[in-house]
């Protein structure tokens, strides 16, 4: 008798597991697996810009300027698959070379405001366009044995800049996680003003009038760029 009762319980259990769940319960379960609508995004990556300007030649063996990129954005508007986000970003890089035997360095740092529109038709990927106006600060130095002092010749300057770019992002983390990881790749054009490079020797103010700057012509730090980044959204 007991053995028969046990068979009935097993059969009930199997039946219970095999019975389809009610429709309402199905909807709740699907809502739980949909990715959460992340609000914040922080990204870090590498940005490579092609500077074709002849004024860049003393500082690099080729036209590439590689920078570290950081950015943080917040979703401002979400409408279905369309998202608009705003944020701030920064790029910093340096390049060094030898110009006719003299050692040279160029530092380039950029801070910008980000306005980004996204279209996300899939959970695991989206495309975006971005506009990022900002301020580009640069410092060019040259160290040469012909300088009147041991200090390097230097020119520090800044200018307005703006990036316009488009790209795509692919989610690489599991969908249910509240914190998601994305790989983004974008390409675009970075515009900045021109600057006439005049590298002045370091000296006391009273001696500056006697020391002529080194004229290296005009640098135009603008050109196409690519950025590969890892973004975290929450």
């Amino acid at each position, binding site marked *: 008798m007991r053995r028969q009762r046990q068979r009935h319980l097993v059969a009930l259990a199997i039946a219970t597991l095999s019975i389809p769940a009610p429709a309402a319960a199905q909807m709740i379960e699907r809502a739980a697996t949909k990715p959460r609508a992340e609000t914040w995004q922080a990204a870090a990556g590498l940005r*490579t810009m*092609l500077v*074709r300007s*002849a004024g860049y*030649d*003393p500082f*690099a*063996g*080729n*036209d*590439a300027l*590689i920078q570290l990129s950081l950015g943080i954005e917040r979703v401002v508007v979400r409408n279905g698959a369309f998202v608009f986000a705003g944020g701030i970003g920064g790029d910093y890089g340096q390049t060094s*070379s*030898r*110009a*006719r*035997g*003299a050692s040279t360095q160029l530092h380039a740092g950029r801070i910008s405001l980000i306005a980004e529109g996204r279209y996300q038709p899939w959970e*695991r*990927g989206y495309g975006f366009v971005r506009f990022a106006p900002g301020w580009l600060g640069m410092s060019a130095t*040259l160290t*040469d*044995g*012909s*300088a*009147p*002092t041991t200090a390097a*010749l230097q020119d520090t300057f800044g200018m307005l800049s703006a990036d316009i770019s488009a790209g795509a992002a*692919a989610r*690489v983390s599991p969908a249910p996680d509240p914190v998601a990881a994305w*790989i983004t*790749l974008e*390409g675009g054009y970075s515009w900045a003003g021109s600057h006439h490079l005049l590298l002045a*020797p370091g000296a006391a103010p009273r001696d500056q009038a*006697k*020391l*002529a700057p*080194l*004229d*290296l*012509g005009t640098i135009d730090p603008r050109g*196409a760029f*690519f950025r*590969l980044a890892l973004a975290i959204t929450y």
Partner: protein
Amino acid sequence: MNNKLVALALLAALAAAAVAASSCGDRPEAWSQPASVEVTFGLTRAVAVVDAPADRVVLLVPGTGQSLRIDAVPVGRNILTVVASPKREKLFVLSAGHRAKIGDDEADEKPSLTVIEPGVPAQRYVLASLTDPLAGLAIDPIEERWAIMYAATGPNQAFVQNPNELVFLDVSQPPETATLRAHTLHSFGGRPARLTFTPTLGLPGGDRRLLIVESDQDLSILDLADPDNEISVPLTSGNDNRRLAPAAVVVDDGDPARVDDARIGVRLQNDPSVITLTLEPEPGTIGFRPTVNLTDVGGIPTDIAFVRTDGGLRLAALVPPRSEAVLVDPVTSLTTHVALPARYASLSLVTDSAGGGAGAPVDVALLWNGGAATDGVAFWELGQTAGRPYRSIETIGVVSAIAAVLPVPQHPALRVLQTASAKEFYVLDLQTRTAAPLVTSTAAIALSMSPVGDQVWTFAPSGTNVAATGILDTHPRSLIIERPVRHVFEVANDDGRFAMIVHGGGNGGVTIYDADTLDDDTRRLYSSVLTGGPYQ
């Protein structure tokens, strides 16, 4: 999961494409080449630095307020030879060009001669008929009209070369119309070593200029107007079959009213003789032929000059081993030996200032470059040679051997004497026959003369001492110099007169002083003057 891998692969491919694209666009190769101010020329209006690795000449043009304009003048690739014009207004740059082989990334380029003059667009003469470079270059010092190229010895020469081929280029013509004219010397086996351009000589058949080409065993005389008119003279000893090697030539036009007395004097490297060639009339295309006289002077001469003495025209030869000068009558080959108080090896004619002036019937020579430290200089009065030649020498109390005598522009009565020890120098007044000494604190000094002639620049190469000494008052003024000095030039242009102190090390620097005031407060220092482009 597969979708994720596809996405990652796509991203990786795009990243690789980005990196590949970023590696494009290398800068010109010259940026990676070192720069040096080692080969620098002081022109009248600018300083020219030959930047051979970048195939260019950099002109440093000073301006108002000691400003500096840097003009990079591109020249033909692979610079062979650079020569400043005798008047120092132009620079001639001979380039080999480049012969591009199949698959060569660099374009083919013919040999070329670039003529650079500050303030004037450079002219490039493409030497299209030459395949292999001729590295020898001689510039006509009088008219600066003729540039003559010839084969030079040394590495990187052509597989087959004709050492006796001279290529004439008339640089008074623009590059569009100038043509090359090649002429092969009637060689007796030698190859050209030195080219001498004569002034206009009164010759049978008309006044003309000659080109005298010395080889290691013969002498060729060419009509500059028509190089095919050539006479070659083999130089042989009268006593044996030795080939005589010329060491230098001098020219004298003789009596301006006559056309049959122009003469060429030759001293030899390997024989105690001097040769005189009198250019006498002869029917034929060239109109003259040289009559050769070989005269033994008792020792290998170190310097020669045609001089006018109280006995007539003579070829004077200095023979230091015998401490004497020998006067050779070019007509009779008779000699007069004049004992000298020292072993003077060099002479200069100073008749204009120390003698009777221009057109004087007899010359006065300055003797210098003696062997001992106390030899100094001496005046040689050539009006007293016939009777008592031993009375014709007057020594000056200079207690150093003189290595060079520098003329002073606009002051014909003055000379600057550079000593062999290079620890002092003298300002010699030819009229009063006095020599003012100027002593330096370091040895191995170098001198540079102001083109205006009012001061002489003294500096220690690789040191930081530069001084300007007034020629008339012999008052020295030192300059403040921050970097080791390689060259010192004085440059004058429409903006003023400037002292250009060129610094070696690194990519070259220059300190510019106002050469009139020498005011330290208004000097300007420029660094890395060879760094900037553009580059080809």
